[in-house]
């Protein structure tokens, strides 16, 4: 937009040199303040993103670096002084293995070798002081979560220090996969029907009805999944097959939730295809179906693909439906009729109780959250890129 006072001095001064009008652009403090305020409003969104990444990242880092000491109930069997590296330990309690990091009172040691009840250690590990200890002191074992353990193991059980994300991630993938299986074909079918077949009146009636589906809070869908979908599945497939809490029911209901998302985004893409393309197809003798499927859908494929990806991202981030209907308690299973806790469901359950800061549980949900954030962010960016790069521009 042009600045209204471009340079009026040049014009005015030539016609009336006597006039001492000061028409130079004055600094407008109020305007500047307002503009700065509005800029800050816009910039806040960047702060939010930074805040998310920073807070989630900080707590996740703590999760992966903090050392927790867990009592092994295994006592030291003999008195040792500062220089002994091989000694006897009690038989009871949990077993020690090579490379375990243990603590006896304030001193940290690394286990080098284990022979029955005798262990060989490296004294004064991690900058601690090697001192003498008396028999009977209990040995603590270090529990540290490594990235490798996090991403490659399949058991999530914070009580015994097992943090394998795959039992949660697998449940998330199951519910999302089922949801996508329901929503993508149905959503695309709805979109093709509304955009290519339905009369204006039918579209005006059907679209708002479907949009109601998108406006209903997800906790209501959770209720629906638990009180309608699960009993329905159980009555069809048998009560022995289907658990009360299961990923199939949650997945199907998430699918219903995202049908309007898929259908409205895909329909926008389909309606944006110009009429001339359809008329050309009809002119060549194509039937209505052939026009829709072979001409219009390929022309709108970038928009449809973007809709699909946004829908997947939405399904992965969906929380309340899985928190209510998919079950509590992580389980690594590929059976959709068994209960399994998803990433989001786990976060809700853990944070629902009285969560103390600086506990491993508190940190662990941030690690899950960070992973969730990056997955959905990645999918959203991919979706935007698809629209930008593959959009067919007509006219």
């Amino acid at each position: 937009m042009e600045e209204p006072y471009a340079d009026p001095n040049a014009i005015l001064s030539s016609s009336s040199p006597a006039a001492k009008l000061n028409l130079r652009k004055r600094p407008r403090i109020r305007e500047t303040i307002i503009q700065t305020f509005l800029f800050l409003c816009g910039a806040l969104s960047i702060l939010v993103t930074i805040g998310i990444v920073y807070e989630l990242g900080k707590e996740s880092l703590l999760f992966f670096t903090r050392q927790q000491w867990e009592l092994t109930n295994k006592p030291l069997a003999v008195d040792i002084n500062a220089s002994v590296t091989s000694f006897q330990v009690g038989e009871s309690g949990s077993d020690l293995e090579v490379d375990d990091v243990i603590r006896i009172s304030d001193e940290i040691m690394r286990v080098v070798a284990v022979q029955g009840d005798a262990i060989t250690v490296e004294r004064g590990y991690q900058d601690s002081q090697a001192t003498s200890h008396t028999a009977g002191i209990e040995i603590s074992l270090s529990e540290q979560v490594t990235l490798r353990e996090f991403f490659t193991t399949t058991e999530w059980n914070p009580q015994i220090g097992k943090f394998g994300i795959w039992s949660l991630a697998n449940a998330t993938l199951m519910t999302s996969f089922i949801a996508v299986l329901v929503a993508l074909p149905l959503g695309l079918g709805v979109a093709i029907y509304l955009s290519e077949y339905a009369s204006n009146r039918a579209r005006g009636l059907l679209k708002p009805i479907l949009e109601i589906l998108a406006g209903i809070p997800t906790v209501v869908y959770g209720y629906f999944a638990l009180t309608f979908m699960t009993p329905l599945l159980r009555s069809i497939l048998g009560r022995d097959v289907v658990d009360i809490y299961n990923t199939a029911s949650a997945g199907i209901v998430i699918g219903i939730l995202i049908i309007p998302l898929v259908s409205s985004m895909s329909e926008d893409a389909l309606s944006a295809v110009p009429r001339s393309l359809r008329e050309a197809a009809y002119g060549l003798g194509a039937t209505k179906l052939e026009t829709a499927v072979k001409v219009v859908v390929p022309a709108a494929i970038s928009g449809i693909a973007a809709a699909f990806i946004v829908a997947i991202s939405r399904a992965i981030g969906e929380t309340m439906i899985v928190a209510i209907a998919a079950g509590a308690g992580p389980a690594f299973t590929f059976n959709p009729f068994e209960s399994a806790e998803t990433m989001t469901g786990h976060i809700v359950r853990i944070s629902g109780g009285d969560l103390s800061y600086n506990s491993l549980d508190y940190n662990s949900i941030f690690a899950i959250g960070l992973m969730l954030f990056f997955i959905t962010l990645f999918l959203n960016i991919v979706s935007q890129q698809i629209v930008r790069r593959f959009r067919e521009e007509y006219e």
Partner: protein
Amino acid sequence: MRQPKEQSQPSPSSQEEPFDTKLARRHRLGRIWLVVFQASTIVGIVALVALLLSIANSAFGYVIYEYDIDPAELAGGDVPLEELPKETLIAILQENISDGAFRRLEDLKPFADRSQANVYRLVIERVAEPKAVEQWTLYQSLFNRSAIFEEAVRDYPDGELRFESWFDPHFVTAPQSSDPVQAGVRTAILGSLWTILVAFLFAFPIGVGAALYLEEYAADNFLNRLIRTNINNLAGVPSIIYGMLGLAIFVRLLEQLTSGAIFGLTDPTTANGRTILSAGLTLGLLILPLIIINAQEAVKAVPNSLRQASFGLGATRWQTVWHHVLPNALSGVLTGTILAVSRAIGETAPLVVVGASTYITFDPDGPFSKFTTLPIQIYQWTARPQDVFRNIAAAAILMLLVLLLSLNATAVLLRNRYSRRL
């Protein structure tokens, strides 16, 4: 769809069917797929209907109540308990509950100021103490009545069979309670209203400001493109992530502010930052991108001729924006904001993470009090194993839907009222 490959071959092969039979097949295929497309639309609508019916199914139906003391016994004479004068009811109450409990009720609100209906309620709640021992769904109640009556007489001779609408005035006005028969959603409704008020006050000015900046001021440079992309990405972040941000920033980092400690409030029950203010600000952050995107659309729709006319008359940029662009975009901005707010009302996950209270019976009295909201109540009640909690969860869902419906109706009214023809 899956047309045979040979169609694309230039020379018609000998197996090629005659055009007529192929045409018939193509049309048949077209009709089949039309049915498929229609069916997917119908599936969507059926799902919606099933959803609403399953809620109604649980929100109404026959219930058998058993009383600690039968109300007829309490009333003694021929006059039913409901119609007894207030003084008699107070006497019954005083007789049957401990003196301490009676004094607490008196302290809460003097009996002289209470209405007869209120005292009757107290007598039922405190003395008669109805328990829902068995309940049926609306479907069973409508089509299986005789079986229900039989069972009621056979299994619960002392019980009272009643057709119950769980969603009734008492449910809306009563505070939360651990007894599902007495429980209501007043605390939750007030909590919901408080949190969205805070969210609105926080997100509306900032959201509209950001939209005005992006549409009216921002040059096309790297920073502004980054802001635009970033807002689009934030709109796609799962809501639970906002909850975790709220937990880390508002509840933990800004605890002094959100618990009201820096304002001299030292209520021990609220001092941990899990307050309405934290929840409202979290929801505010959540709906901020939605408000910005909607407001941007509304501002974009204001015709450029208006701006140019204003500039031509010597108005500054802010004068143009404030006096011409904003008033013309207002209906769109408000509609978008209301849609965003109705999203915020239904949000559950971020509030669970931020730390909604699971059980509070007192009304929230300001931004620094503990809170529960309607969706949180629904979640809590749905997660309970006893069937009767499903009934009140369904009633709470009806309440939530009524709230959402009225908000959306307001949005439509606003749009019709303020949309000026340009």
